[in-house]
Structure formats: structure tokens, C-alpha cells
């Protein structure tokens, strides 16, 4: 493996949480219904292709983007559209599909010899595989008419309780390689593949890619950071990113011609009795999975994703489109007497030196959802920079977003970040500022005003 760059950082933090999944792949219990949530695709306005009661096959279009009809989201399963859930202003919240006992799939003819970008793009769109390709800036589904400057795939995951791709994709090396070949047709320079410096796993054997290695604490695994280090985004440029498992899915699609939505997930967290890895599909019901692993507390919060960036979901909700972990942690709606005293309650995980917690929890921490204080004005400075490895001033960017100063947001680097990169800032800041929310709104504004 030849490295084009070894990215290193010391800024950030690796939060040690209890409840990591045991390294053994279990087969997921069957799911009788599946769901797609348009909200999983940031910035996409859904237009339905089906109505309640319609029969669908695996790979049948369910909805597409109003602004860009080439972006099609398809059904992960064959069955009947059971329900279309709508929220305020008739916004589509979820499309529930009831799986039928007989599984049929739409099969596309793939001509392995044709390798031009337009043909590949067309196949990906027809097969419903296109939404797996994401775009920077903004972290939205890529626009098929763009030609990206580069494609990034990072196999180094640093978020709390993140999965180990080398483990979860151990049987999928061939499909991964195939997926990389497909993606290589879409760009001039071969795909940039990020691997962990200490344990690159089978990814170092992948051919026809630009390997780079990463070491350092979270958010070092975030692709935004790698892009900034290797080929920073300028105004108007596009970089695409694909999750490792979706590279596998794309590879598999090009072998079989069928939509592939495999998800190897960890159901973990200290709210779970027996955290496990499951091989399943996107959009499955969470209830059977949760029943399989067991709850460790009565009152738990289930999060689609990791504890820093995930979305809250109810116990009878569904697995999100992109996430690879489902985390459950106890709710923290309890009081702590004099909890603000420095060096009291060292059992609460803290990065601050006003607590001894870092000296203890070598075995990991039990965490809960308590806010541990109240929202306040921004007073403390310098703490955000400690957990933010980017060459960006995080507080200044947040303030620019708060006052909606587009010029300043652009100048301070809004194109180079996605909300997830601010997850640790959410966690660590003294004033309990909702940094991810501010960045998300900032990006929405940019999409609206600049595009």
C-alpha cells in the first residue's frame, strides 16, 4: 500500500462509552415492514412515485427529488406500500412498506464493458443507487450532472461506539473492490481511500485507489477533515463521498443488477443489555433488533446513529438510510444536587479539567442524556478549537451562521464542513450551544441563497 498522505491530528477527543458491541456478526431477526424517511436526505424535496396500496418490487422507485428528478429513492424490499405518514403542512415523514412473502426484484441489465461516466451514472440512477453518493459542500445527495474534483471513501470511523469497517465488511472485499472500480469511472483521479493508520485491515489490499492514512481522535475520521487536508474545497467545486458499505452495495449492484441496501450495524450503547452486530438492510424495523439485544434500563432513548450526531427515534421506529449504528442510552431526566461543584460527580464523562472523570473511566462511561447544565451566553473561548482539527475558526463560523452573514460564512469555511463535524463541539462546550443545529441552518441558508 502506497500512501499519498498520512493525516495526523491531536485535536479532538475519543469519548470512551460503555456498551460496545461484541465482535460477532448475527443475522438480524426478520422485519415485516420497512420505512424510508425523506428527512434522511438533507436538502431533498420528495415527490412520491407511489400511493398507499401500490405493489412494489425491490428496486421500484418510491420517491424522487422535486428539484432533480434523476435522484430516485427505491424500495429496499418487495411488498405493498402500507402507509404514507405525513406531518405538519402535509410534509412526507415516512413511507412504510409491508414486505411480502415472495421477494421479487427489478433487475437491470449491466453491460460490464461500457465504462463511460454517463452510462454508469444512468445505471446508478435507474437502480436507485445514486443516493448513496453524497456531495460536499453541504453533505447532500450528489447532483448527477456534476463532475466532482475527487471521490472520498473513509474506512476510519472515530465517532463514539463507531463500527469497525474492517470487521463488518470482512466478507465483502470483492464487492468493495468492484464498487471502487465503478466509482473510478466517475472521476479523473482514482478514489481517495482513507484507512486507519494503526489497523488498515483489508482496505490496504484494495487496488486502483489513492490510499491515505489517518490517525487521531474523533473527529479525525470525518471525511470533511480528510478533504480539507488532501484537496480542500474551493467555492463552486464539488467533492463526492461514499460510505464504505455503500461502495460494497454499488459493487454488488453492478454484479447482480439488483438494488442492494445492505447495512451491517451495531446496536450498542449502555442502554442495551447485550450489544451486537447485525447484518441487515436499510429501513428495517428497530423493534425486533431491540428485543433481541434487550434493554438495560426502563427509560431509554434510541438514536439512529451515534450519540453525537444521530437522530432520536422511537422504539418502534426504523433504521435510517445511512447510519451504521443504533445507540441506546438512558434518559437523564434527573437532578444532581450541587452538581456544578468542580470535582463533584466524577462519574459523568467530561473533557474538562474541572472533573477528575478522565483519571477514572478507563473501562468507559455510562452516559445519559442529561444536559448537565443550562444554555448560557457564549463566555468561554478556546474550548471549541481543542476538539476541532480543521483549519477553521469554529466559534467565528458559528457566530457568522447565527447572524446569517453569508459572505462571512463563505470566507470562514462553511463549504468545508457538515453539521456532524460540530458534534463534539455540541458535546464539549460550556454554554450548551447547539452548534450542529446552527451549522445545519447555516447550510440550509447557503443552499437557498448560493446553491
Amino acid at each position, binding site marked *: 500500500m502506497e500512501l499519498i498522505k498520512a493525516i495526523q491530528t491531536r485535536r479532538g477527543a475519543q*469519548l470512551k462509552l460503555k456498551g460496545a458491541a461484541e465482535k460477532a456478526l448475527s443475522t438480524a431477526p426478520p422485519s415485516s415492514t420497512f420505512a424510508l424517511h425523506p428527512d434522511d436526505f438533507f436538502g431533498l424535496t420528495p415527490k412520491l412515485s407511489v400511493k398507499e396500496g401500490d405493489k412494489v418490487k425491490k428496486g421500484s422507485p418510491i420517491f424522487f427529488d422535486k428539484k432533480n428528478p434523476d435522484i430516485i429513492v427505491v424500495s429496499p424490499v418487495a411488498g405493498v406500500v402500507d402507509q404514507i405518514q405525513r406531518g405538519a403542512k402535509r410534509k412526507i415523514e415516512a413511507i412504510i412498506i409491508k414486505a411480502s412473502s415472495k421477494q421479487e426484484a427489478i433487475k437491470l441489465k449491466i453491460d460490464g464493458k461500457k465504462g463511460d461516466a454517463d452510462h454508469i451514472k444512468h445505471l446508478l440512477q435507474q437502480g436507485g443507487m445514486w443516493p448513496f453518493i453524497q456531495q460536499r459542500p453541504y453533505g447532500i445527495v450528489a447532483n448527477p450532472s456534476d463532475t466532482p474534483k475527487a471521490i472520498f471513501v473513509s474506512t476510519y470511523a472515530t465517532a*463514539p461506539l463507531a463500527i469497525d469497517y474492517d470487521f463488518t465488511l470482512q466478507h465483502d472485499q470483492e464487492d468493495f473492490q468492484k464498487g471502487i472500480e465503478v466509482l473510478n469511472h466517475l472521476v479523473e483521479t482514482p478514489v481517495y481511500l482513507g484507512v486507519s493508520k494503526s489497523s488498515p485491515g483489508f482496505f490496504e489490499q484494495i487496488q486502483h485507489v489513492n490510499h491515505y492514512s489517518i490517525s487521531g481522535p474523533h473527529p479525525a475520521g470525518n471525511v470533511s477533515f480528510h478533504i480539507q487536508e488532501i484537496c480542500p474545497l*474551493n467555492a463552486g467545486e464539488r467533492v463526492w463521498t461514499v460510505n464504505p458499505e455503500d461502495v460494497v452495495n454499488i459493487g454488488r449492484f453492478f454484479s447482480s443488477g439488483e438494488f442492494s441496501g445492505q447495512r451491517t450495524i451495531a446496536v450498542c450503547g449502555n442502554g442495551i443489555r447485550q450489544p451486537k452486530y447485525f447484518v441487515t438492510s436499510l429501513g428495517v424495523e428497530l423493534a425486533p433488533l431491540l428485543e433481541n439485544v434487550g434493554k438495560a434500563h426502563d427509560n431509554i432513548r434510541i*438514536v439512529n446513529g451515534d*450519540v*453525537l*450526531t*444521530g437522530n*432520536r427515534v422511537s422504539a418502534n421506529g426504523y433504521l435510517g438510510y445511512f447510519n451504521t449504528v443504533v*445507540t441506546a*442510552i438512558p*434518559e*437523564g*431526566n434527573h*437532578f*444532581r*444536587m450541587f*452538581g*456544578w*461543584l*468542580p470535582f463533584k*460527580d466524577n462519574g*459523568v*464523562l*467530561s*473533557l*474538562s*479539567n*474541572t*472533573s477528575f472523570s478522565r483519571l477514572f473511566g478507563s473501562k468507559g462511561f455510562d*452516559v445519559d*442524556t*442529561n*444536559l*448537565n*447544565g*443550562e*444554555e*448560557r*451566553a*457564549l*463566555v*468561554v*473561548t*478556546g474550548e471549541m478549537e481543542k476538539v476541532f482539527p480543521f*483549519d477553521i475558526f469554529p*466559534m467565528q463560523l458559528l457566530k457568522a451562521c447565527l447572524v446569517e452573514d453569508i459572505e462571512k460564512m463563505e*470566507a*470562514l*469555511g462553511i463549504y468545508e464542513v457538515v453539521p456532524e463535524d460540530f458534534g*463534539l463541539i*455540541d*458535546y*464539549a462546550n*460550556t454554554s*450548551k450551544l*447547539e*452548534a*450542529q*443545529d446552527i451549522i445545519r441552518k447555516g447550510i440550509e441558508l447557503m443552499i437557498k441563497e448560493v446553491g
Partner: protein
Amino acid sequence: MKALRNKLDQLRKPFEKGQKLEKFAPAFSAFDTFLFVPNHTTKKGAHIRDAVDLKRTMVTVIIALLPALLYGIYNTGYQYYIQTGSPFTFIDAFIHGAWKVVPMIVVSYVVGLSIEFGFAVYRGHEVNEGYLVTGLLIPMIMPIDIPLWMVGISTAFAVLIAKEAFGGTGMNILNPALTARAFAFFAYPTYMSGNKVWVSEASSVDGISGETILGNLAAGNQVNYSFMDMFQGAIPGSIAETSALWVAVGALILILTGIGSWRIMVGGILGAAIMGLLFNLWGANALMSFSWINHLVVGGFAFGIVFMATDPVTAAQTNKGKWIYGILVGIFCIMIRVFNPAYPEGVMLAILLMNVFAPTIDHYVVNGNIKKRQKRWATAQNLKTA
């Protein structure tokens, strides 16, 4: 504990939304959250949060202030008894000091917190904890014999004009505690300088006279204190500023807990040392030839650079900016001391001056980052068109 919690939940009822006392909810919350960290859970963003909050941060600063405060209380009594020549014990000195200092602290907290609570209720936001520190700092940097009503007026001025007028905690340009002192300094100069204000009862008891070391030097007099006296702080001066030793203990607490910026402190000491050294080489008057190392331990420099210059709201906010800001505070402090005999203590004005310039420093530091990005964009553009 459970019983107390239940009682509080019961007392809270009239303050809840739609109830009679809804408007006063921030005032009630301030007391409630003082006893208990609330049961609020995360609503959006990260689902887990750090144990640190603004209360904990501010309380850490107060803990860091305590060594200097306690020594200041003792030194108040010590100076008094030494000057009157009467025999005394440690306890005597401490009691004398406490009898003078505690009422000042009470006045500062009562006046300041009343205004803070008033604004919180008026503006409908929670009471911010910042004043817990400001309210303690104000008496600590005053001369011992300043009348209580002056403490009250200075406090009110500082909180109203320096803080609330700018939008409250987190928005102020000037450090509120220093503004209080500057207000008193210019409004009541006879109570803030001279040789009759620095030792307890100096103005009423004949025979006591206590000029600060810097005041003496500015007047061209000899100084009879050794370096160790100045370092330990058994010298006349504002209540808690005299002991560099105990201020250093506070600095250590602030640096180890990560609450105070070590960059500002080290920068300030560097700036002051270099400036002091340069003046030593020049040596045109008593203050210039006063050794640079002595400059670091006398007067309010140590206290100012550790507790006032590091106020995160009014200091520079970028890491690079903090270095520049700290160094400039040090340089200006010594420069004002040496060049302006009317203000033998330069640290207050140096910090206030740099408070005003801190946003400018940050502006240039952040601009550096912006320029770099724009340059990169421009190169990318050229490549494309070429």
C-alpha cells in the same frame, strides 16, 4: 435531598408558564439551579453533554480567587496592626480584615445581583453566573477604606454601563470589575490614591501612613521592602492584589483546570518583563530603574494579568490573539507605570485599553485564515482558466 427537591418542585408551581409569577421564573430558577443541576435533557444536537457548565466554570474561578482573598483579608489587619504598633495575633489581623472586607463583598453582591436579577426578569432570560466572579473581584481590587456607598455606586455603574448596556453577559467590551474600579478611580480620586487609603484606618488614626510601593517610587521616595515582602504581599495596596504568591496559586488552579488562558498569562508576564528590562537599561528615573522582576510582583500586575486580563469575554478569543493581547497588556502596564506618575498603577488602564483592542486583534487573526482561503480559491480559479 428528596424532600428538598419535592419542596422546590412545589414552590416552582406559581412560576411555571401561564401561572401568576411566570415573569419571575428566571429569579426562581437561579436559586433552584444553585441547589440542583436541573433535569433538562438534550433536545437536539449531540445526545450526551459534558459535565462542565458555566456555573462550574465560574465557581472554579471563585475557588482560584480564594487564596488571594484570604491573604488580602489577613494583610489588611496585618498592615493596620504593624502601623499602629500594637501587639496582635494572626487571628486578630484576620478578624480586623474580615470586619472591613466582608461588608464590601456583601454590598457588591447585593447591588450587582439585584441588577442582574432585574435584567434577567425584564429580558426574560436566565440569570448568568458571570456576576459571581465580578462581584467578588470588585471589592478585591478596591482600597480598604473606600466607603461602602462608593463600592455600591461603582458596582451599579459597572453592571449597568459596562455590561447590561452592551447586552449582558458575553457581549460586554470592558471587564466589568475593572470598569467599577476605573469609575471609582476617576470619580473619587481622593479615596483611590495617595498615602492615606491603602492601610486600614489610615485617614482617621494619626501616625499611620501607607503609600504603595509604586506610589512611593513615582514620588521619588525610597522603598524599604525586600523582594520577598513584595512577593509574599505584606505590603500596602488594594485588598487582594498585594500577594504575588497567592495570586500564583490561583493562577495554577486556573491553568490546571483549563479555565484561565495560560497564553494570556505567559504573554503578559513576557511583555512586562521585556518592557521592564528595557526600562532598566534606560534607567532615567526611580521607576525605570526599579528592577524588572520587582515590577512583576508589586502592585496589581500579577492579580490583573491572572484574573482580569484572562476574562474570556473581554480578552482576545483566538489562540494567537491571546498571545498578542497578553504581551501588549504586559508592555502597556509597565509603560503606563513608568511614564505617567499620575497613575502609578498601570495594569488597570492597560487591561481596559487592550479590552477595547481585543476585537481588532481577533479581526486580524481571523482575517489571516480568511486570506489563506481566498488565496487558495484564487489559485484554483487561475488553474481552471489557464
